[in-house]
Structure formats: C-alpha cells, structure tokens
C-alpha cells in the first residue's frame, strides 16, 4: 500500500512504541522561545534533568521584545525577565540563543527555514502552535504546550498518538492579486476552524505547486487555524533550489545524498488519506475575515453575513461576531475606515510579503490618522529588505519600519491597539481582544493591508488596481 509523505516522515522518526501505546517520535530540530521556555527550564532543573540534545535545541526571543526601531532589552520592560530567564537557562544547558543582536535573530518559524536548519523530511517542535509553518518545506512540525516542551528538552522525543491523514487539493489558478494568504483563508472558509482536527493536512494540487516556498510557508502557517496540528507541502525542485546554499543546509556530496533522499518523500500515487477535500481556487480574489474566527472569511468586495439568512442555531455566534466587529448585518466591508495596519508575523513577513506590500505603497503616503507598522519576520529579512530599499519605500510612505518580533500578532510585547480600533493585519488570528482589548482585527494578505494603509479604509484592491 502506498504511503503519504506524512507516513514516510513519521515512520522514519518513530523510536519505539511507549508502554502506553504512544509512538515516541524523534525531534530533529527544537526551537523554544522566551514566553514559554522559562517555566519548562525551571521544572526541568527542579527534576534534576538536563537538556538531552543541546546541539539541536535553540532558543528564540521572539514573543516579547519591543518592535520599536533601535530597541533593546529594556524598551519593553516586561520583556526583560523573560529574556534573562531564557538566556540563563540556555547558557546552563549549552543551548544557542538567537539573541536580539544575533545575525540570525527572528521569529522561530521564519529563522528555522531561512538558515536551512529545518529541512524536508525533518521533524520539528516549537512551543508555539504555528510550528506548522515549516511544513512549507516538507517538514513535519508540531506546536506543543509547556509540559510537552519540557518533555522534548529532557528526551528529544514527543509521545504522540498517530494522527490521521487528510489531503486538500487546491485546484485552478489564483487571480493575479491573490497570494498564499488568500488561499489559506479560502480553505478556512470552506472547511472551518475544526475541519482538520485529528489530521495532518497535505496541501496538494496545482495551486500548492505554483506557490513560492515563502507562499507555502504562509499556507502551512494557517494549518493550525484549520484545527490541524500540522500541515505540509511535498518538496519539489523549487524547494531544493530555495534551500541550496542556505548557511546550515548540507553541502557538496552530503547535499547530493540529502537530495536523493528528499526526492523519495512525496506521497505515493496510491497513498491512502482518511479525508480528501477539494478547494476551487480558480480566479481567487483577495480575501478578508469579517468576524472573530479565522474561518469567517469573505472576498474583499463581499458583504458581512446576515444572520436572518442563516439557520437559527448559527445565528447567535454570527450576531455576536458582528457586534464585536462593529458591523451591521449584510454590510459591505469596502469603505470601512481603518485605524491601524500591521504587516508582520510568522504568517506574512518574509521578503516577498514585504515586497508585495511595498509595490502598493511606493510613492504614496499612509492616510492621515492611520498608524502603520511593518515588522520583518527576522533580522535577515530586514537586512535583505534594506539592501534593496524596501525599507525606504515604507518609511517614505510614513510606515514605522520596526524591528523584527512577533509584535502585534499576539501583542505579548505590548504592541496593541486601542478599544474600538479596526486593524488590518497580515497575521493569523482575529480572535476577540487578541490585538488589544476591544480591537477589531481583519486578517488579510500584505497587498490588501498596504492598500488600506494608503486609503485609510478597506479597499477593493482589484478595482483599485484596475484604476477605478
């Protein structure tokens, strides 16, 4: 019987079955972060244990540092104790920290792929639910809780029940103004926030193949929003070209050996999936969330739903979301004034995302009263953007060109909006209060976020581009 890419990676990493029937899955690369690691390191120490494999364990400092240009440890005073705790515990255990001044600093899910640390066919763990991002390279990643994090530190394995397999076929050719984020939002609108529960999703079909690697990373980033703990895209020549020459990727004869192995990873023709879904992406237009969960998605020129059109049992949740978002039933979103724009996060802050937004912004200015912040996904992305003048495009237009950090994605660093503000954000969660108490978040791709910053309101990008 044929095997899927998931089966191949899983089977290759099962150390043994634990006495309770769970598989012990070896974790090839583990990146912790300062928000959750201090607690786990403390418990580890209290139990008299050490990090088993400091050589494949790393600490990111992404959630709490300020994004203020020129920031240091103290710019966000609440960050300092987290940073110091992780630095101390990492030093004690011989774990490398991607510190604020490190050339490889950044959000863990951005840094892992870009330095060539996470590779196709590898297993990966991060105590952040968006670990699934690296599935874009054909790696199998698991977000984990704090206790699981401690478990990985102590043992280098995760004790898991084998998930089921799901395949999402992405058919058609997306519209010129749509990007990977719109594909992910479209899938969410179709399968919902629990559509992938208990499954690992493989994204397949012409749309998945046509996406750039950065696009695949964006797509896989949102797998967790679909209720699935992980998702991946099988690696192909595009993946290998993207990885070739990255600082930590294998070189020379070892590259050839790795390449031969990676080519065996894609799912066999006759692989079995417990669930198969097809999403028609033909002519896909920019998407936007109107509500408070990431599956409440419409085309940008669409209308918020009207509860009266819905079955009675669905009305309550929709009404509550409309109310929170300050929307009337059936109202169009285009034209709504926006207060803040955030372009950043592990979802949409790699170089092509910033370039996509910069193209819209070039030569224009952020609308009066709008605060627009760009925070690159990593120090490398920031450097590369600066080298080609992308930072200048944003700064000239009145954007804040911030330091790399998670920033407004979860607001753990204090970057938050004010109650009642409407924010267009390239992040992954539009939950109530996530970006600040009473803040109304709309999830969008970089182009739409940029266009709204200039217009000061939600705009129909396709129409705008057509010069109407």
């Amino acid at each position, binding site marked *: 019987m044929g095997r899927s890419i998931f089966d191949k990676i899983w089977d290759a990493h099962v*150390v043994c079955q634990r006495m309770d029937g769970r598989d012990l899955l070896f974790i090839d690369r583990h990146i912790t972060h300062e928000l959750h690691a201090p607690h786990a390191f403390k418990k580890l120490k209290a139990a008299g244990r050490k990090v088993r494999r400091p050589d494949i364990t790393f600490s990111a400092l992404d959630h709490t540092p300020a994004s203020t240009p020129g920031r240091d440890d103290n710019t966000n005073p609440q960050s300092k104790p987290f940073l110091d705790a992780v630095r101390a515990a990492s030093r004690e255990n011989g774990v490398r920290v991607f510190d604020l001044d490190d050339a490889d600093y950044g959000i863990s899910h951005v840094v892992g792929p870009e330095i060539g640390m996470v590779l196709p066919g590898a297993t990966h763990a991060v105590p952040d639910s968006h670990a699934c991002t690296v599935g874009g390279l054909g790696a199998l990643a698991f977000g984990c809780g704090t206790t699981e994090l401690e478990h990985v530190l102590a043992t280098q394995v995760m004790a898991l029940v084998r998930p089921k397999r799901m395949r999402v076929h992405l058919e058609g050719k997306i519209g010129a103004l749509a990007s990977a984020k719109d594909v992910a939002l479209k899938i969410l609108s179709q399968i919902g926030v629990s559509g992938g529960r208990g499954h690992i999703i493989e994204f397949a079909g012409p749309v998945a193949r046509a996406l750039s690697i950065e696009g695949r990373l964006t797509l896989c980033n949102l797998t967790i929003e679909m209720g699935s703990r992980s998702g991946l895209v099988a690696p192909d020549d595009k993946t290998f070209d993207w990885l070739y020459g990255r600082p930590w990727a294998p070189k020379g004869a070892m590259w050839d050996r790795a390449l031969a192995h990676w080519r065996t990873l894609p799912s066999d023709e006759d692989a079995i999936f417990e669930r198969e879904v097809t999403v028609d992406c033909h002519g896909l237009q920019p998407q936007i969330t109107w509500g408070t969960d990431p599956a409440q998605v419409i085309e940008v020129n669409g209308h918020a739903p009207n509860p009266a059109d819905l079955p009675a049992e669905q009305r309550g949740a929709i009404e509550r979301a409309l109310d929170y978002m300050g929307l009337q039933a059936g109202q169009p979103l285009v034209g709504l004034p926006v207060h803040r724009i955030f372009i950043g996060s592990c979802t949409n802050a790699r170089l092509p995302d910033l370039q996509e937004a910069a193209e819209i912004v070039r030569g224009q200015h952020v609308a009066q009263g709008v605060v627009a912040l760009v925070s690159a996904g990593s120090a490398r992305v920031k450097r590369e953007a600066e080298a080609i003048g992308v930072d200048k495009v944003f700064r000239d237009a009145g954007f804040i060109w911030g330091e790399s950090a998670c920033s407004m994605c979860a607001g753990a660093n204090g970057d938050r909006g004010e109650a009642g503000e409407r924010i267009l954000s390239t992040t992954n969660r539009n939950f109530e209060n996530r970006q600040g108490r009473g803040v109304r978040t709309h999830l969008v791709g970089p182009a739409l976020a940029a266009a709204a910053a200039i217009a000061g309101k939600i705009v129909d990008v396709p129409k705008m581009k057509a010069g109407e």
Partner: protein
Amino acid sequence: MKAFTRIMGTAIPFLEDDVNTDQIAPMGAGARMSEDYAQTLFQHRRHSADGAEIPDFVFNQPQFRTGAMLISGRNFGCGSSRESAVWTFLAIGVTCIITRSFADMYRENCLQNGILPITLPDAQADQLEAAVVAANGAAPFAVDLVSQEIKGPHGLRIAFDISPADRARLLEGLDDIGLTLKHKAEIEAFEKKMAQHIPWSQRADASSL
C-alpha cells in the same frame, strides 16, 4: 502529576463552540512572568471595558466562581498552544472538562496536567447540558474515571469513552518524562542509526558534514 480517580462538585456550563485559548487565558496588556491564573480566566469576557464585572457572565455568578468540572461545546480550546489556558481552570478547581470535541493540542495539555478531557456524542452531551443547566450549580455532579461514568441529580448516569492508555495515565498520575526515559536505550540507538543513514538530520548545522 496528581492522579485522577473520581471527583464530585459543581458543573459549570459554558455552552459555546470554538472557545479559543486567547479567550480562556488572554495575554492582558502584555506578557507577565508570574500570573494569578484564577484572575486571568476569561478576563476580558468577565469584565466590561471600564473594568466592571459583568454579573451574568457564567464565571462571575457566585455558584460558578469555582467548580469541579466544565461543560462546553465543539472544538474547545482551539488556537494558541498556551498551557496557561489549562492552568486557569486548575486554579478554580476544575479537573475535568466535558465537551463535544477538543482541539488536539488542548486535549494533550489537559492530559499533561491531570485534567480529564471527556468527549461526549451529541445525544449524551444534550442530556448532560440540560441537566447541568437545570441544576444551575445547586446540585453536585460526579465523574468517576474508574467506572467511566458521569453521575448527576435525579439518577442521571452517562457512560463515557476514553482510551485505555489515557485512562491509565490519569489514574496513576504518571510522570510522562519518566515513562519516556524508560526507553533511553532505544533513543540512543535511534540517534546512532540516524547519524549513519541520514547524517544531516543529527546535525543542526549540516553544512560542515
């Protein structure tokens, strides 16, 4: 980890679907190193913008400020992996969460902390919800992991399923890391084997291989 055998006490009805961990344990105005988890629980939903408590929000009602178990809807605990969304419930005494379904990572975080996660099919969930709402905190409910039964007022008895492995783990309050470390030799052998077959998998910076 504390073992779970049986509990008895107030059942808190929170009958919503897709309750995410950002709601259960919001980050507040930013991250803090030490937190009062009981205080954090549904902080934003409990208070209006001016800081006043919303009296009819379920966790503000006097009978539901603490409790033994929580009853909720579908896809409970979706979103962020933050384990604080489990600790907040422990902080008010809840050690059993009964839903129509759980988000995968949340269920795992429950097991890691000695919280019994029970999933009920719709018919049984309807029955339990009705009883819990009717009791309104005035009559106790019991959950017995040994007999795999939920008991309530007026002779209510609902059987539940749980995998034998998860059941054993909770009943014995096993140290998960200790359990895995019994396989230390196998982990070492695996590392050696991989270093041979897929050398780049065992070296974070594989460029120097």
